[in-house]
């Protein structure tokens, strides 16, 4: 029972990451109609915002270790600590949450530049060409990061107050072994916040309503004299923020490297399509569904019954859902079916 509860938590947490990534993609892919293979790169860039902020905060005074002569070995003391003392240490430890705040404007800017500079010219082009150009862009972005940060993963730590594991079992009066990392709970919470703010923006504000109307019928909204193009730029920016935040906040769980975008790319497409094209809710639901089922599939007794099931579970679910529901969980008719 406890193990099931833990796997459910794992699933929710995994699902939260999937849902965030898929939400950004479905905004661009399901609604703007652009097959954006650079979506994984946005996730990666978000993660590297965290890395960059951390690097900036920890610019250090270097004290050489004189015992080593062949190369420069040194201990580092960040200037922030030297200047601000404990406050400086505190700031550095909180670099991931701080970088999340930084990521919002940075990712917005990246999104706008990407849309204005490149994507806008491809709305009318074929999907094949969209794939080629965005895939090329993804490679280029990855390589640029590799030039600056190297190819190895770079670990990021959560603030000490939020690292370590929460003793959920003890708190709830259940099994003592029921513990769960604080940061994962924070991630879950943040993803709920982000998802609900995006939904609130699209459903409650007039701006969002126009955007949604434009998704449904671009020409119609254009006829109303509303500049839908500009709104789509904003949508792209929002997608970039959501995806970037997903990456940024994920860094304490998954040390980022330049390659991580590609690993999440396929997954995000699967989640979006399983959720159904053109449906924001579908993408979120599919994210959680896949996350939870993936967690359960990893359990020993499940693997004993069906060997290798955890290797393929995501794809298996995708096949089953797409065959039983023609347009995924909540897909709209006519989106990307041609």
């Amino acid at each position: 029972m406890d193990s099931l509860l833990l796997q459910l938590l794992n699933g929710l947490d995994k699902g939260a990451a999937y849902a965030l990534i898929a939400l950004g993609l479905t905004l661009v892919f399901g609604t703007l109609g652009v097959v954006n293979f650079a979506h994984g790169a946005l996730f990666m860039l978000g993660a590297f915002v965290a890395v960059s902020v951390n690097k900036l905060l920890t610019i250090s005074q270097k004290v050489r270790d004189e015992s080593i002569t062949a190369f420069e070995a040194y201990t580092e003391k960040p200037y922030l600590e030297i200047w601000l003392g404990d406050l400086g240490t505190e700031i550095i430890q909180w670099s991931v949450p701080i970088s999340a705040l930084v990521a919002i404007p940075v990712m917005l800017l990246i999104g706008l530049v990407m849309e204005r500079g490149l994507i806008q010219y491809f709305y009318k082009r074929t999907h094949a060409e969209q794939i080629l150009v965005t895939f090329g862009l993804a490679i280029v972005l990855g390589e640029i990061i590799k030039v600056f940060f190297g190819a190895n993963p770079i670990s990021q730590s959560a603030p000490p107050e939020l690292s370590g594991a929460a003793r959920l079992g003890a708190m709830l009066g259940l099994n003592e072994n029921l513990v769960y990392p604080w940061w994962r709970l924070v991630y879950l919470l943040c993803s709920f916040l982000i998802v609900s703010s995006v939904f609130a923006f699209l459903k409650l504000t007039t701006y969002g309503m126009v955007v949604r109307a434009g998704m449904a019928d671009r020409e119609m909204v254009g006829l109303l004299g509303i500049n839908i193009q500009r709104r789509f730029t904003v949508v792209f920016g929002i997608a970039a923020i959501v995806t970037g935040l997903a990456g940024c906040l994920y860094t304490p769980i998954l040390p980022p490297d330049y390659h991580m975008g590609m690993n999440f790319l396929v997954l995000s497409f699967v989640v979006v399509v399983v959720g159904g094209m053109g449906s924001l809710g579908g993408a979120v639901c599919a994210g959680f569904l896949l996350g939870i089922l993936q967690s359960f599939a990893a359990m020993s007794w499940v693997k004993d019954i069906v060997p290798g099931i955890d290797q393929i579970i995501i794809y298996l679910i995708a096949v089953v859902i797409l065959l039983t529901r023609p347009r995924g969980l909540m897909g709209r008719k006519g989106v990307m079916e041609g």
Partner: protein
Amino acid sequence: MTDNGNPTGWSRRRFLQTGAATTAGLGALSFSGTAPTGFVRNAWAQDFRNNPGNSDTVTLGFNVPQTGPYAEEGKDELRAYKLAVKHLNGEGDGGMLNTMQPTALKGNGILGKKVDYVTGDTQTKSDAARASAKRMIERDGVVMVTGGSSSGVAVSVQALCQDMGVIFMAGLTHANDTTGKDRRRYGFRHFFNAHMSAAALGPVLKEQMGTNRKSYMLVADYNWGWSVEESMKNVTEEMGWETVNALRTPLGTSDYSQYLTPVRDSGADVLFLIHYGGDMVNSLTQAVQFGLKDATVNGKPFEIVVPLYSRVMAQGAGEAVAGIYGSTNWHWSLQNEGSEAFVKSFGEEYGFPPSQAAHTCYVQTLLYANAVESAGTFYPPEVIKFLEGFEFTGMGNGDTLYRAADHQAFKPVLVVKGNDDPQSQFDLLEVVKEVPTEEIMYPADLYPGNLGPYEV
């Protein structure tokens, strides 16, 4: 492809072999410039692939991952190779050329030919690695291929090199298969393997954690993972440990939470993370987040063990490695003549210490060059015969033997621990013990395989 039908070649080779054997130890062997050997080389021109003949340079092929998750490791390997070429050509401070014993190398290239090199990208994929190796062999005319950063690549490139009659000096490859089931006459591995990791870790774990432990293993679900799992199980179960579960995890998993949560409930008090590179970084980081390192189970402190340490993971996992046991082939902090010489020249060249991958690649290059120099010919069967059973020292690992039966190098293995209190940004690991060769030695037929013929 290669033609071995020259009826006169054999006797000449015999002659040369004897010559090489008698003069190898003296390190003064040089045929160059004398008429009879010039004749001999010409006679061999058709005998083996990529014979450098009368050319005044000789080309080596450095096949390393330049893209993909192990690009950084490949980069470090390449640095080591370039340094080795420099030293072979008599540039720089000579590095381990000065400490290697015995050696025939003189710092004037190989057999008087200047050493040149070509590079390629394995992408850590068998196909790409073989394509790259083939380019080196077919287009660039290399006499030796070396490199790689995974066992899949090593095994497949080694098989290719056997087919094409070019010697392969493996880079980083840890699976037993490379010199076990898939061993090849033309392939040599200086790096240690899963069996040796387990054998070396066993006594240390026993010492540190006692004999009454329950272990849980997370195993990368492919050949290498299984071979480490098997080796670790054999060793730990022999010393009285119980394996509660060995759960296989898909390659390239980014979130291991679903595999980690059952660990605590299982009653296990030791966790083996049998992953490599990026996978290891993720699983270890997350295992620590789940509080496993600080936990107490069965009245004992919970322990995490990573059988194979590498720089990728030590850097990528950051603080998480502190106090975690594992094994490694070599570490720059070793205090011996060879290591110090190598760290000095590498550090001065690049500004930071070499990784174990760089070390093994550097050593492999020197070993090949020395074998050619000593055999007095590039003719692969002679070079192979020299390397088979070659004993040497001063290369950073102490006394080392290239076993003839399976082409595996035997030398002490390092058991290391993540540093709790690093003195510098490079001070990530602390050597706990150098396990002597006798303790990790195993019979060559433990993993039966067939080396194949000398001549192809």
